[in-house]
């Protein structure tokens, strides 16, 4: 009875509380996330003329992206590197995730934590570590020459798209292992046993039971790895050098060096458009999978 008397006033009170709980975060996101993004979009339609911004709306920056080989090549190279990194990560991550989920036994928690621990150190330090490893006088080169295996340092280790790719794989492999682990972990051993009882070989059981069930994990991991890899700046700048730019480096070049903010904004918008297109395609595909 007491509860009934209270309901009216406390419902109202809780409604106020709910609004008070959500209002700060919504306001924050609008002011410091939505507004800046909208501003970025607006900037991309302005143009830099004689070091001053011309506020007449124009598609000049977007056209420039396709006519300027430096920018266009940066975009292409970024996509290539991101695709390569994603594929290598998938191939490297799958056996690891499978091992942790199915073979590790009591080591499972420890192995999972060990995947996450490198994240507790700064991203920039992890990139720096690869510079130490791959540099002209770095760990690998000086180690090989100590062993007498090389006379001259291997130059192409550092400052190449390969170095960038290694750094990106290192940085984002854990992001691939974790969702894969979750999806493989859900595959029950009894399902495999059932397949084998029905006469399937272990290999066939794997390809017809385990693998199809972890395709969602593979896709989620791929999407995140690709998104993180395609937009990264620190690793290509530290390890890839300035010869073959990636899109993130081109964006910083526009902003910092050329002071061409509208141009940099347009490049950023193209990067965002690519990411959004991939996300929307994946979400559609996942829904299709649910329906089928």
């Amino acid at each position, binding site marked *: 009875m007491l509860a009934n008397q209270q309901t009216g006033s406390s419902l109202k009170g809780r409604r106020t509380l709910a609004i008070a709980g959500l209002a700060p975060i919504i306001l924050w996101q609008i002011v410091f996330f939505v507004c*800046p993004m909208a501003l970025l979009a607006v900037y991309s339609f302005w143009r830099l003329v004689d070091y001053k911004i011309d506020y007449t709306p124009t598609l000049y920056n977007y056209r420039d992206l396709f006519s300027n080989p430096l920018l266009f090549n940066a975009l292409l190279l970024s996509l290539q590197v991101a695709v390569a990194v994603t594929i290598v990560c998938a191939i490297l991550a799958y056996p690891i995730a499978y091992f942790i989920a199915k*073979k590790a036994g009591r080591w499972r928690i420890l192995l999972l934590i060990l995947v996450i621990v490198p994240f507790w150190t700064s991203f920039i330090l992890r990139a720096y*570590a690869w510079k130490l490893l791959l540099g002209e006088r770095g760990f690998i080169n000086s180690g090989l020459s100590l062993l007498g295996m090389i006379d001259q340092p291997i130059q192409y280790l550092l400052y190449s798209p390969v170095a960038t790719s290694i750094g990106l794989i290192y940085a984002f492999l854990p992001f691939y292992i974790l969702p894969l682990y979750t999806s493989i972990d859900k595959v029950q051993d*009894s399902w495999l046993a059932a397949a084998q009882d029905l006469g399937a070989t272990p290999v066939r059981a794997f390809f017809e039971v385990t693998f199809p069930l972890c395709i969602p994990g593979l896709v989620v991991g791929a999407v995140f790895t690709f998104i993180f890899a395609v937009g990264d700046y620190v690793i290509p700048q530290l390890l890839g050098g300035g010869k073959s730019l990636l899109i993130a480096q081109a964006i910083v070049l526009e902003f910092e060096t050329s002071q061409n903010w509208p141009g940099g904004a347009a490049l*950023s918008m193209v990067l965002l458009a690519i990411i959004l297109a991939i996300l929307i395609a994946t979400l559609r595909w996942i829904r299709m999978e649910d329906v089928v």
Partner: protein
Amino acid sequence: MAAATATSSVTRESPLSRFLGIAYVGLVYGFFYIPIIVIVLFAFSGRDIPALPLENFTTRWFHEALADEELMSSLWTSTWIAFVTAILATAIGMPAAMVLAWRPFRGKAFVFGLILSPIIIPQMVIGISLLLLFRYSPQLIGAIGIVIAHITLTLCFSVMIFYSRFLGFRMSLVEAAMDLGASEARTFFEVILPLATPAILAVMLLTFTESFGEFIVAWFVAGFDETLPIAIWTSLRFGLSPRINAIATLIMVISITLSALAQFWILRQTRAPSQAG
């Protein structure tokens, strides 16, 4: 019994494939940890450049790093920025997660989208867009701007951790407190807050670490202020110095110890109530 034998027939494998599996896992974990080990090794080597062979074990670089005023002041800046970020990201994220987890309302998907979408935006783009915004209020450029940027980056983690914690919350405890006449405020401080402590700690730790190590966004909005990652980045332009290895080693030891302790503590806390009940 039948189930047990069936399972073992699936997991049985030859020693060779077992060995190959373990060797592969060892290789990949080596890949994860060799860079970190290399940083630490070179921090103790007596040579001026971080190269092999390692010579003359020394702690000189640690002394030099700790005596380096620029490095130390950037370390202090990073620390307080990360601390303020952790507190505010927790304070803003926690009530929002409570509402999202406990109250049905229209437009919830939209609010989730608004909160989570920064995850998919490259951090560099977030930094650039904030810089464009701060151009209209230049007094925010600098440490304040970095705090704002880091809160924007970490709110999504904060809300997600609290949200999953509050979804699994025993609402009967809250209802019991309210039925016994406790006010909303008292229920919050005496029931919800103690039960949410592990989640609060987890969020503060994660947001602190993320802010402390974050470089690219801070770099864009920093103005003349310097965080430790920015100081490291700047000094990398002048070549590799073992001093960076020394400071990196110190930070890694501290952050890995803190995170491990907190993880351990959280595990114990989350186990304790279930054992009691």
